[in-house]
C-alpha cells in the first residue's frame, strides 16, 4: 500500500498539465494570437501615426496582455470541473493550497509565458522605443504571475457556474486595475526618462504577498463554490 507523497502529487499535476498543453499545442498559441489581434486593432482604430502610437504603446501592450490573460483564465479550472477531475483533486489526501499553487503555476507557464514572449513583437508594432523594452519585459515578468494569481481566486469562485465568461470579467478586472497602474506606470516613467523602480518594487511586493495568500484563498473559494 503506497500513499502518494505531496511531491509526487505536485509532480503528477504539473506533468499532466504540461502534457495536456502539449497535446493541444495549437490552442496554446491562442492567447498570444488574441493579444496580437487586439494590438492590431489600435492602429486601425486610431490611425497609423507612429508618434501617437509610440506615446501609448506600453499602455496598449499591457491592456492587450491583460485582456488575453483574462480570456485564458477560463481554462484554469473549468475543464477540470466539467470532467470531474477537480472533485478528485479536492478529495486528494494532500493540502489543497499546494496543489492549487501547482495548477496556477502550470497555467502561468502555458498561457502567460507565450504572452511574454510575444510582447516584444507587440511593442515593436506600436513603435515602442527600444530603451523601454527591458522595463516592459521586467514589468511583464512580475505582472503576469500576479494576474494569474488574482484571476485564479475569481475563477475559483465562479467555477460552478455555466457561462460565467462575462461575470468573470467583471469580477476580475477591478482586481487587475492596480497591477495595470503600476506595471504600465513603470514603463511610462521609463519612457519619460523618470525613475521607474518604485512601481516595480511595489509590484514585486504584491507578487510575494499573493504567492502566499492566493493559494489559501483559492482553496477556500473552491470549497465554497463546489459545495
Amino acid at each position: 500500500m503506497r500513499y502518494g507523497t505531496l511531491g509526487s502529487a505536485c509532480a503528477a499535476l504539473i506533468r499532466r498539465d504540461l502534457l495536456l498543453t502539449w497535446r493541444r499545442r495549437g490552442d496554446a498559441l491562442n492567447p498570444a494570437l488574441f493579444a496580437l489581434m487586439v494590438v492590431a486593432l489600435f492602429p486601425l482604430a486610431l490611425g497609423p501615426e507612429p508618434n501617437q502610437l509610440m506615446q501609448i504603446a506600453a499602455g496598449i501592450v499591457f491592456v492587450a496582455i491583460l485582456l488575453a490573460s483574462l480570456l485564458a483564465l477560463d481554462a484554469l479550472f473549468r475543464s477540470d470541473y466539467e470532467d470531474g477531475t477537480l472533485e478528485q483533486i479536492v478529495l486528494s489526501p494532500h493540502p489543497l493550497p499546494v496543489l492549487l499553487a501547482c495548477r496556477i503555476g502550470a497555467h502561468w507557464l502555458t498561457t502567460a509565458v507565450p504572452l511574454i514572449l510575444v510582447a516584444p513583437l507587440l511593442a515593436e508594432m506600436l513603435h515602442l522605443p527600444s530603451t523601454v523594452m527591458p522595463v516592459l519585459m521586467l514589468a511583464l515578468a512580475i505582472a503576469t504571475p500576479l494576474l494569474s494569481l488574482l484571476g485564479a481566486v475569481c475563477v475559483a469562485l465562479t467555477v460552478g457556474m455555466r457561462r460565467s465568461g462575462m461575470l468573470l470579467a467583471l469580477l476580475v478586472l477591478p482586481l487587475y486595475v492596480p497591477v495595470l497602474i503600476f506595471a504600465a506606470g513603470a514603463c511610462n516613467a521609463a519612457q519619460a526618462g523618470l525613475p521607474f523602480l518604485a512601481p516595480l518594487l511595489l509590484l514585486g511586493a504584491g507578487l510575494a504577498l499573493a504567492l502566499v495568500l492566493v493559494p489559501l484563498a483559492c482553496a477556500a473559494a473552491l470549497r465554497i463554490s463546489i459545495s
Partner: protein
Amino acid sequence: MHSQATADPVPLLSARALAFSRNEEPIFGPIDFSLHAGEVVLIEGDNGSGKTTLLKVLSGLLLPSSGTIELHGEALTMSRLSQQVALMGHLPGLKADLTALENLEFSIGVFGLRAGNTPMLALASLGLQGYEHVAVRLLSAGQKKRVALARLLLVPAALWLLDEPYANLDKEGIDLVNRLLEAHARRGGAALITSHGAYAFTSGSPRRLPLRPAA
C-alpha cells in the same frame, strides 16, 4: 432508519443522525447506518431523493448540516478520509486528451497505489488491453467508464462510493461492475452504490438502504 447488526464490531463507516440541507431545505433526513468490511450496500431512492448528495457528504465534499460520520470508529479528518474513501461521481474524472494509462498515472500520483497492482494490470483486468495508449477521447462511453473503474482498482481506498455506476451501461457493463464489487468485497473492502429504482443490482442480494426526500 436502517441499521444491521453484524459480526464485526467496528464498522468501516458509520453515520449517526446524518442530515444535509441546502437553502434551509432538508435534502435528506437524519439517517443512521453503518457499513462493515465486505459489505456492498445499495442506496435506493427516486430522482432528487438525495443519493448523490449523501455520497458527497460521506466523501467529505460537502459538510453535513448535522450528525456525525465515523471511519473505523474514529471521527474523521479530511486527509484520513481521502486515503480511505474513493468517490466515483456522475462524471468520469478523466482527461479526454490523455491516454488511459496517463490518466491512471495521474491519479496514482495524487492518490497513491494499492499494493500489488499496476495500471497495466488494472486496465487488462477490465478488458482494455491494447487500449492503454489510446486517448480517452477516442474511447466509447462504456470504455470510458471502464477506465474510471480501473482507477478504483488502483487507489488504496478501502471504501468505494459509486454514484450510479450502472447508468448508461449495457448489460455486459453492468455485469462487469457487479464482478468488481464482489471482488472488492471479498478483499475486505466495502462499497456504497446508488441507483434509482429502474436498475437492478443483478448478482446476489445486496443490503438496500432506502432514501426518501426529507421534506
